[in-house]
C-alpha cells in the first residue's frame, strides 16, 4: 500500500542489488551473535524446565504423580493443568493442542513439566514423575488412517476439464494411453541447528516478556496471552534471531513459550525451556509425509492429457498448518507442467504422531514429487528420454493453472530450461554418460533436468500484510523495526539495504532492531518466502514517509522545491548543488527543531489475492518463481550407494535484492532438498509409534559429502518482477525443489542397470538401500523379460 506521495527524485539503488555479507556475519563468526538460549546465563535466578513424557502413541492418562519428584534436589515445582489461569491449549489453527492432555496422542507427548534450579535436576526429577497410562489403539500410517477414516479435514478438491470432457474419467478414457502409480513421499525433520527455545520472565512493569525462537512472534504472544488469560497488551514477544527455522518455528514455537510463561507466572522467576535435540525431534512436527495415488492419460509423444490424483498427507495428531500445506501440494502438483485435464483431491490424515507442520516449500515439494514420478513413468512407457517428455509438457506463455490462475511469465520456464540445457552441456554429457555406463557394469551414472515453478504468497489471503516502524533520531541515526524475523535467510540484510536506499544513507546509519511485538503489532509469520516481499514494501513505505518530511525541511533550508531534494550517501542536497550538501544528521536535527515527527509506520498488503476453496478456483499467488536444475549422479550397483558429481542450476529471483544472500538461499535450499529426497529418512517404530530416528546419529542430514563436487549456480539475469519490492522475487522456498533433479538422476542411473526398463520405481527418500532395491528390481525384470523371450 503506497501512501499519497509527492513527486520526488527517485532514490538511487546503492545498496539494493549489491552482494553483501549477512548483516550479522561478524557476530556469527566471533560467537557474539546471541540466540534465545544464550540469554539464559546472562540472567540471574533462572529455572530450567524438562518435560514429563508419556511413552505411548495413544493412551488415556490415568494419573500423574509428581510427589517423589517434588522432593528431589533443586526442584522448584511441577507444572500441570491446574496451574493454567487461562486456556490450556496452544493450538493455532484450531484449539486441538492441550498443553496438559488427558489423552496422549503421540509417543513422548509431555503431560507435565518439571522446573528446577538446573537442567540436569529438572531432567532427573521428570524421570521420577509417575505417569499411569491406559494404552489405546494407535493409528500410525496413512493407509491405516484412510482405512479407519481418520481425517483432520474434509476432502479438498480442484477440478479442471477441457470443454469436451464431462468428468476426469472421460478425459482419461479419451487419452491414447494410461497408467497408474502410487508414491509414498517421506517427511523431513527440520533440524534447525538451534533447537526450540524460550525464556520468559515478568519484567519490572509486570509485563510478561517472552524471548522465543519463533518465526511468528505475534502468534506466540497471542497464545501465551491465551494460556495466561491475559490480553495481548500484557505480553511482549521478542525473536532476536533464530539458528534456522525452515517452517519448524512457524507455529511450533508456541508451546514452549507457553510452558515457560506459565512457569514464570507461577513462580515469579525467569523460566527457560529449551528442547535438547532428542526432545526437539520427538516433540515437534516435521514435513508432512504424503501418499500420492494417480492415473495419467498421455499419448505416444509423451503429452500429458489427463491427471487424476489423490493426495493424502500424514498430518499427525493436530491440525496445525496441515490444511494450507495440503492446498499448496494440490496447487503444485503441476510443478511446471500444463495439466489440461485434472482432478486433484486431497485429505489430511489424522494419526498418532507428532503434528506435521510447515517446512520450506510447504507441501509444494510433495505435490511436485508426484508429477515428476508420473512423468518419468510416461517417459519409460513411451521409450522417450525423460527430459524430452518434461520439456514437451512445460507451461508456455498464456497457459492457465488447474486452479484457474494464468501462469504469469510462463515463457521464462522454457527460456530457463533451454539456457540451462545449453550451459550444462546436457546433450554432450548424455553421450559421455552412455559411454561410461557401457564400459562399467557395476557403476552407472545418471543425469536429469527438472523445472521448478513455485507460487508466491500465503495462500491464506489475510496473512499477506506487513508493518514496519522506522525511528529517526535527531542525530541522524535510525532504528529499523519490521515484523519479519531473522532465521538466517538474510531478511534483515535485505531490509537494511532497502531502508538505506530509501533514506540515502549508509548501512551503518541504520540499526536493525530485534523483532518485537511491541514495535510492530499483528504481524504474520515470516514464512511462505514472503518475508522480503511484504516487509520490504512496509519498510520502504515507512522510510519514504520520513524522506518526504525531510524533503520539505531541506527544501526550505536550501530554498528549493522539496521534490528537488536528493538524498545520497548520507548527504542531502538540491539536485545539481552537491557542493552545498548537508549531512543527513544535520537535516534530521533541523527537522526535530522544527517539530517534524521523525518516526513513521509503514504498511503493505499484497493486492488481488483470492481463492475460492469450494469452487477450487482463484488467484492464490501474487506471482511465480522459476528455476531448473541438472544433476548428475553415480551409483554403485553393489550397494546402492551414490554420489553427486555435478549440479547446474539456473534460478529466477527477479532482480536480486542481495545476490550473496540469494545465492546462499539457492544453494542451501538445493542441498536441503537433496537431503530430503535422498539421505534423510524418518523411521517410526511400527509397534510403539516411537520415532526411531530421534537424533543426529540416526537421522542423517546432508554433510559436506553431499555438497556436489561441481556445483554451478547462476541467477537468471534481467529478471525484474513488476509490483514487487525493487523487482525482486522471493527466494526462500523455490530452490528447495530444484533437488527433484537429483532423485530423477538417481532413477536415470538405476535404469542404466538394465536395457531401457519400461518402469523404474524408486522409493522416496531414495536412500542407498532404496536405490539398491530399485537396481535389483530393474535387473530382475530384465531377466524375466529375457526369460520370456527365450
Amino acid at each position, binding site marked *: 500500500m503506497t501512501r499519497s506521495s509527492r513527486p520526488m527524485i527517485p532514490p538511487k539503488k546503492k545498496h539494493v542489488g549489491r552482494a553483501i555479507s549477512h548483516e550479522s556475519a561478524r557476530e556469527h563468526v566471533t560467537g557474539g551473535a546471541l540466540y534465545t538460549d544464550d540469554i539464559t546465563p546472562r540472567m540471574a535466578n533462572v529455572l530450567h524446565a524438562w518435560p514429563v513424557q508419556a511413552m505411548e502413541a495413544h493412551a488415556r492418562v490415568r494419573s500423574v504423580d509428581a510427589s517423589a519428584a517434588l522432593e528431589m534436589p533443586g526442584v522448584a515445582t511441577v507444572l500441570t493443568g491446574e496451574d493454567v489461569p487461562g486456556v490450556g491449549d496452544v493450538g493455532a489453527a484450531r484449539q486441538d493442542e492441550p498443553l496438559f492432555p488427558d489423552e496422549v496422542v503421540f509417543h513422548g507427548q509431555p503431560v507435565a513439566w518439571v522446573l528446577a534450579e538446573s537442567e540436569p535436576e529438572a531432567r532427573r526429577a521428570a524421570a521420577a514423575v509417575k505417569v499411569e497410562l491406559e494404552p489405546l489403539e494407535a493409528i500410525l500410517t496413512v493407509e491405516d488412517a484412510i482405512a479407519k477414516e481418520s481425517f483432520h479435514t474434509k476432502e479438498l478438491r480442484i477440478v479442471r476439464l477441457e470443454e469436451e470432457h464431462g468428468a476426469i474419467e472421460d478425459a482419461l478414457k479419451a487419452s491414447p494411453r494410461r497408467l497408474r502409480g502410487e508414491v509414498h513421499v517421506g517427511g523431513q525433520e527440520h533440524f534447525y541447528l538451534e533447537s526450540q527455545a524460550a525464556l520468559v520472565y515478568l519484567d519490572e512493569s509486570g509485563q510478561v516478556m517472552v524471548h522465543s525462537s519463533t518465526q511468528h512472534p505475534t502468534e506466540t504472544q497471542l497464545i501465551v496471552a491465551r494460556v495466561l488469560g491475559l490480553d495481548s497488551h500484557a505480553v511482549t514477544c521478542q525473536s532476536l534471531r533464530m539458528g534456522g527455522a525452515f517452517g519448524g518455528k512457524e507455529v511450533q514455537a508456541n508451546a514452549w513459550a507457553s510452558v515457560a510463561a506459565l512457569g514464570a507466572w507461577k513462580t515469579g522467576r525467569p523460566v527457560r525451556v529449551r528442547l535438547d535435540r532428542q526432545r526437539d525431534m520427538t516433540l515437534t512436527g516435521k514435513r508432512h509425509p504424503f501418499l500420492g495415488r494417480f492415473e495419467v492419460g498421455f499419448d505416444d509423444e509423451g503429452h500429458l492429457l489427463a491427471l487424476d490424483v489423490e493426495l493424502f498427507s500424514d498430518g499427525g495428531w493436530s491440525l496445525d498448518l496441515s490444511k494450507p500445506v495440503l492446498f499448496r501440494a494440490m496447487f503444485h502438483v503441476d510443478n511446471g507442467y500444463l495439466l489440461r485435464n485434472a482432478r486433484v483431491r486431497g485429505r489430511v490424515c489424522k494419526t498418532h504422531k507428532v503434528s506435521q507442520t510447515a517446512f520450506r516449500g510447504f507441501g509444494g515439494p510433495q505435490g511436485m514429487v508426484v508429477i515428476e514420478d508420473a512423468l518419468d513413468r510416461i517417459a519409460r512407457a513411451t521409450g522417450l528420454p525423460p527430459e524430452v517428455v518434461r520439456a514437451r509438457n512445460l507451461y508456455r506463455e498464456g497457459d492457465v493453472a488447474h486452479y484457474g490462475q494464468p501462469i504469469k511469465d510462463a515463457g521464462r520456464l522454457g527460456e530457463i530450461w533451454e539456457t540451462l540445457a545449453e550451459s550444462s552441456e546436457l546433450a554432450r554429457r548424455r553421450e559421455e554418460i552412455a559411454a561410461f555406463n557401457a564400459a562399467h557394469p557395476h557403476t552407472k551414472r545418471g543425469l536429469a533436468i527438472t523445472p521448478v515453478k513455485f507460487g508466491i504468497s500465503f495462500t491464506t489471503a489475510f496473512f499477506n500484510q506487513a508493518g514496519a516502524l522506522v525511528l529517526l533520531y535527531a542525530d541522524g541515526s535510525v532504528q529499523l523495526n519490521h515484523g519479519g524475523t531473522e532465521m538466517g535467510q538474510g531478511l534483515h540484510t535485505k531490509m537494511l539495504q532497502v531502508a538505506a536506499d530509501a533514506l540515502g544513507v549508509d548501512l551503518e546509519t541504520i540499526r536493525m532492531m530485534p523483532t518485537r511485538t511491541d514495535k510492530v503489532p499483528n504481524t504474520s509469520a515470516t514464512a511462505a518466502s514472503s518475508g522480503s516481499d511484504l516487509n520490504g514494501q512496509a519498510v520502504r513505505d515507512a522510510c519514504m514517509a520520513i524522506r518526504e518530511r525531510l524533503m520539505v525541511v531541506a527544501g526550505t533550508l536550501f530554498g528549493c522545491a522539496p521534490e528537488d531534494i536528493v538524498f545520497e550517501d548520507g548527504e542531502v542536497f538540491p539536485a545539481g548543488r552537491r557542493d552545498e550538501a548537508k549531512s543527513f544528521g544535520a537535516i534530521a536535527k533541523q527537522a526535530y527543531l522544527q517539530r517534524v515527527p521523525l518516526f513513521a509506520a509503514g504498511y503493505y498488503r499484497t493486492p488481488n489475492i483470492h481463492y475460492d476453496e469450494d469452487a477450487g478456483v482463484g488467484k492464490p499467488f501474487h506471482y511465480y518463481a522459476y528455476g531448473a536444475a541438472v544433476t548428475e549422479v553415480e551409483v554403485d550397483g553393489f*550397494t546402492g550407494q551414490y554420489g553427486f558429481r555435478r549440479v547446474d542450476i539456473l534460478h529466477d529471483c527477479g532482480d536480486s535484492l542481495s545476490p550473496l544472500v540469494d545465492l546462499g538461499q539457492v544453494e542451501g535450499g538445493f542441498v536441503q532438498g537433496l537431503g530430503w529426497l535422498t539421505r534423510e529418512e524418518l523411521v517410526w517404530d511400527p509397534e510403539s509409534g516411537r520415532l526411531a530416528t530421534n537424533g543426529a546419529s540416526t537421522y542423517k542430514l546432508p554433510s559436506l559429502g553431499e555438497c556436489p563436487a561441481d556445483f554451478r549456480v547462476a541467477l537468471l539475469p534481467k529478471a525484474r518482477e513488476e509490483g514487487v519490492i525493487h523487482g525482486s522475487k522471493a527466494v526462500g522456498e523455490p530452490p528447495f525443489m530444484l533437488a527433484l533433479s537429483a532423485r530423477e538422476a538417481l532413477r536415470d542411473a538405476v535404469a542404466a542397470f538394465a536395457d531401457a526398463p519400461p518402469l523404474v520405481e524408486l522409493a522416496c527418500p531414495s536412500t542407498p538401500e532404496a536405490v539398491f532395491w530399485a537396481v535389483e528390481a530393474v535387473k530382475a525384470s530384465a531377466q524375466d523379460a529375457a526369460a520370456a523371450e527365450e
Partner: protein
Amino acid sequence: MTIRFRLNGEPIEAEGVDPHVPLLHFLRDRGLTGTKEGCAEGECGACAVVVVRRGPDGKTRFSPINSCLVLTPAVHGQELWTVEGLADAPDALHPVQAAMVEKGGSQCGYCTPGFVMSLFAEYYRPGRAPGEVDPEAISGNLCRCTGYRPIRDVLVELGAPRKDRHAERLGAPAPAPEPAAHEAGGVAFRRPTTLAALFEALAELPEAKLVAGGTDVVVEINQRDARFDALIALDAVEELRFHEETDDAITLGAGVPLAEVEEALHGRVPVLDELWPLFSSRLIRNRATLGGNLVNASPIGDSPPALLSLDAEVVLVSAKGERSLPLADFFTGYRQTALAPGEILKAVRIPKPLPSIGRFYKVSKRVLDDISTVAAGFGLWLADGVVTKARLGYGGVAATPVRATAAEQALEGKPWNAATVAQALPLLEGAFTPLTDHRGSAAYRRAMVPKLLEKLLADTTTPAEAAE
C-alpha cells in the same frame, strides 16, 4: 580439587563441578555462549573447541574436538581455545573468520563458531601445504543452511598461515597430561597418568566407569542421562599411548586417539587408510580411541571388521599381568567382551605380513560421518595369485562383529578370481541373520554380505583377471 586450565590464554579455576558436566555446558554456563549445542552427541560440531596438544610428530598442534563429549575435569591442566578467543582485538577478525564473512559462509550463524574452530585448527595444521584441501577438516561440522559450498570455498582458499600469536604458540611445547583427582556432588573422578596409578584407582574405585575418548560414554551421559558414582579417565595413561612397528607386528596402544593412529600409520596399512575417512569425523577421531571402539563391542563398530581382516590380536592387562587373545575371541556376545573385572585393553597387535589385498567397505546412508548399516573388512594373502589365507570380517550383520569363516575357507587355496568367488558366495548368503532397524532392513543387510565380496573382486581385478 580445583579444576584448572587455560582458556583463550587466561587461567580458569573451577570448584565443585559435577564430573558428568560436559565442557560445553561448563563454558556456556560461564557466559561463553559462542560455543553452541546442536546435538550433544558429537554429530554436528557446533560445540567444537580447540585443545593445544602434542601430535604424534612431537610437535604442538591445535586439535579441534567436540566439547559436548568431554567431561569438564578431563581438561584439567590443558589449554583450550574457543571462538571468542581467536581474534586479536574486539573489532578484529581472525583470517578464517574474515573469510567466512566474506564468502557468505554463515546464514543463521548457529553452526558457524564450530566451523570457525575446525577451520582455525586446519589453518595452522603443521605440514599443511598451502593450497592443500582436506575435506576431512570440516567433515564433523553440520550446516543446515548454506549447503556447504561457501564454507568449502573458505577451506579451499585457506592459504599459508600468518605469523601471529597462535602460530607462535605452536612453537612452544603443549601442556603435558596432568593427573587429576576430583570429587563433586558425590561423584569421584580420577585421571591417572600411569598404568600403576590406574590400577590403584581401580582398586580404590572398582565400580568406576572407564572413559577414554568419551565418545561413547559421554553420549550415554548426555542422551540417556547415564550417571556413575566414579569415573576414571584413561586419556592420560602413558602406557596406553604408543605405537610401534617391528618385523613381526604393528602394535597400537588402546588409548591413542584414532586421528593419531591414522597419521602415524599413514600409507602402511591400506585397509586402515580406507577405514579412517569413513570412521566418524576428524573431530571425533581426535578423541576417540581404538580401545573404546573395541571394548564398546558394538556390532556396528567399524574398527572390528577392519582389524578382523588383519587377523589382529588384543593385549589385555590387569594388575596381575598381561594376556593376549585373537580379536575374534574378544567379542563374546552383544556388547560383551572377554575382559575380566579389573582388566583393561592395552593394545592391539596387527601381525605381519599384512594381507596382499586389504579393503574396507562401509555401507551407510551418508558417506561422511555416519554409522554403518553394514561394514566389511577383507584381507587376502596371495601367493602367485592363489589365496593362501583369507579373513572376511563383517559388522552390522550379527550380535557381534564376525568373521565369515566358511567363506574364508572356500577362498583359501584357490586363485583369486570370479570362479572362486562364485563358490564362496552361497556360503555368505544367509550366513548371518541380521536385524531390521532404522539404518536398514534385514534383507538389505543380508544382501550386502555377498555383494561386498563381489565388489571386492570387481575392485581388485580387471574383468579379464576375474575371468581367469
